[in-house]
């Protein structure tokens, strides 16, 4: 008997599964090391760095105009917003007042970016939960926005349309018409999203009370964007520190208090409605004027530290620049929303099932190149 007991000392090893770096639900090369107990997730250890490109270091040898095109490649789904952060930083540091027209166009493009990003998130979220059809509906609608981008900026994803002091180009003559067309189109299609997924009882069952994040935890982890606002963290930079033309528009900051996967989902869907409202307010009122201020060919920021934040599609995107007065920055640091959002994943996912972890990852809307930079 005693023998059996001692022989029974087969070590109770943890059942460790590597989700990623190549896995259909991580949307990129993120590696989550998961300890399982049956189907239940005990511990999640994110390992990032698989797509680290050293962008912050590269920025130290690039001029401010050149940095912009690298910020595209952080969170590629809110490329325009990231561009804008650098431009605003340079403009504020040099105290340049950009024309109203530029502000309006930037805001419109920001909101279009946000819409496109949320649409892609919606597709991917459905796919994470196993409803593959959502993917194609979302991409179909996103295509319209990408066409608008392509016509005006020349690129569909990585626009690099901002330059310090304004924009690369004026908007295309078709731009206003196309945006209006898109809004009427998407106002018809968005209720379909609700019918297909939001109302669906399976989705509700899968996401309600899953991955709870309280307000305090959201603030502690620095979870911003729709994910943070679902927990009640009023962190909308557009509302609280308005930039560009956001002080001229009326919009609601979507706030929920529960902070589960379903409300993170809901916050994003509601934000799409708000984005369309912002677009409607701005699109008819673009003032006449120049599309850029004349800048010196070599921009040198005065010595000092600068920080500029904008509301990217996934949360607060910040750029920190330490300048020594040279044409290159001495140090650049990006505060990427996804990195902070990812940090909460162990808090959110532990104790739930594997399938829930996938849903939680989807509801956080992670973009991996933004995490690793």
């Amino acid at each position, binding site marked *: 008997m005693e023998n059996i007991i001692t022989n029974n000392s087969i070590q109770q090893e943890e*059942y*460790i*599964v590597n989700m990623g770096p190549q*896995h*259909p*639900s991580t949307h990129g090369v993120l590696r989550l090391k998961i300890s*399982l107990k049956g*189907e239940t997730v005990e511990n999640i250890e994110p390992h990032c760095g698989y797509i680290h490109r050293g962008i912050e270091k590269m920025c130290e040898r690039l001029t401010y105009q050149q940095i912009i095109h690298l910020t595209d490649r952080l969170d590629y789904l809110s490329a325009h917003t990231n561009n804008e952060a650098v431009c605003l930083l340079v403009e504020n540091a040099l105290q340049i007042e950009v024309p109203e027209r530029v502000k309006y166009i930037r805001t419109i493009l920001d909101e279009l970016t946000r819409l496109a990003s949320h649409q892609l998130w919606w597709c991917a979220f*459905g*796919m*994470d*939960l*196993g*409803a*593959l*059809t959502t*993917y*194609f*509906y979302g991409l*179909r609608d996103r295509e319209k926005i990408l066409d608008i981008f392509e016509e005006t900026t020349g690129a569909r994803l990585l626009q690099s349309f901002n330059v310090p002091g304004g924009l690369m180009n004026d908007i295309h003559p078709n731009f206003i018409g196309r945006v209006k067309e898109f809004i009427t189109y998407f106002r018809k299609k968005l209720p379909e999203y609700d019918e*297909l*997924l939001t109302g*669906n009882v*399976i*989705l509700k*069952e*899968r996401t309600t009370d899953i991955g709870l994040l309280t307000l305090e935890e959201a603030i502690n982890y620095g979870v911003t964007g729709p994910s943070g606002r679902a927990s009640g963290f009023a962190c909308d930079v557009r509302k609280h520190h308005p930039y560009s033309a956001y002080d001229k528009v009326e919009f609601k900051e979507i706030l929920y208090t529960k902070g589960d996967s379903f409300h993170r989902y809901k916050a994003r869907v509601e934000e799409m409605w708000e984005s369309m409202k912002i677009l409607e307010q701005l699109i008819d009122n673009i003032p006449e004027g120049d599309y850029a201020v004349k800048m010196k060919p070599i921009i040198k920021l005065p010595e000092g530290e600068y920080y500029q934040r904008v509301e990217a599609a996934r949360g607060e995107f910040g750029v920190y620049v330490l300048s020594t007065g040279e044409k290159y920055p001495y140090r650049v640091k990006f505060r990427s929303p996804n990195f902070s959002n990812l940090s909460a994943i162990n808090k959110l996912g532990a104790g739930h*099932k*594997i*399938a*829930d972890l*996938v849903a939680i990852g989807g509801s956080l809307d992670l973009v991996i190149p933004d995490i690793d930079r």
Partner: protein
Amino acid sequence: MAFDIYDFTSFNQTIDKALYDNLPPILAMLTEMVIIGVVFLLFYALVGLFLVYAERKVCAFIQNRVGPNRVGPYGIFQTFADFIKLLMKELIPINKADKILFNLAPFIVIIASFMAIAAIPFGKGLHAIDLNVGIFYVMAVSSLGVVGILLAGWSSNNKYSLIGAMRSGAQIVSYELSVGLSMVTMVILAGSMQLSEIVEAQRNGWFIFTGHVPAFIAFVIFLIASTAETNRGPFDLAEAESELTAGFHTEYSGIKFAFFFLAEYMNMFIVASIAATIFWGGWMPLHIPGWEGFNIVMDYIPPFFWYMGKTLVVIFLMMWFKWTFPRLRIDQLLKLEWKYLLPINLFNIILMALIVLMGWHF
């Protein structure tokens, strides 16, 4: 009845008699088996390839895209091309996998689905074997497939595969119950477990109409439970692509993967044909009592087309909800079975028994 022109019984008996007259009994039996085997193999391959193509087209249209359209007109040869590709692919040997079980698993899965076909009546007299416990046999055989899935998951020595196989085990054990009970409901109405007799009993109206409310409930339950049993979405937890990469068949490649793939579609076909047989009258044409002219016109449509048409409609239903719904979680899957389907099913059986007893059915 007019559809008796499509009776294959005498045709079969002639062949049978000719064989036994001219050959020694053992050889005659062997010849018959070989003929049936070849016919079914061909049928199996063709239906499998067609269903893969159909699924891809249906899901493409549902998803607002065109689907395969490069190989042949409307891409009809796409699946043949895919099949050839899979045949030529390398069978990757897995280190530290249990070699025998690993190689055995796909065969178990495919043989299980192959055996179930034998009992299905495609027309009057057109079945390989007409067991007097046909439904029982089909249920028993089609649930053998899970053994293959469990073996595949266990022997691949892959953590994802193991989780997938365990999920599949839990899933099939519980949903088998609902499939069985919903069939029992219909057996009460038919009064027989022999598939040919069940079809005959629907001569004057399909069970879904004659059995009205309980039959419809049983049909819905059967559809849900059998979708779960065949591991198809929204119950495809065993292979849950976004969670377990490919679940139990992660490590399989080439033709072994094709076996799993084909078996999934064939299981769907079998389940749909059982649904068509016991709820929608199998090969029995649509008869409306009193409309003699209409009934005769319907009778001239060959029973095989009736059978295939009904089966394809059921398959389409299964595809439709696969491509609409998100996947359930494992505990919700079990909750759905034990909390909803099972009590409703038991209640439904009592209802059906009552209706049959009181003669309230049509």
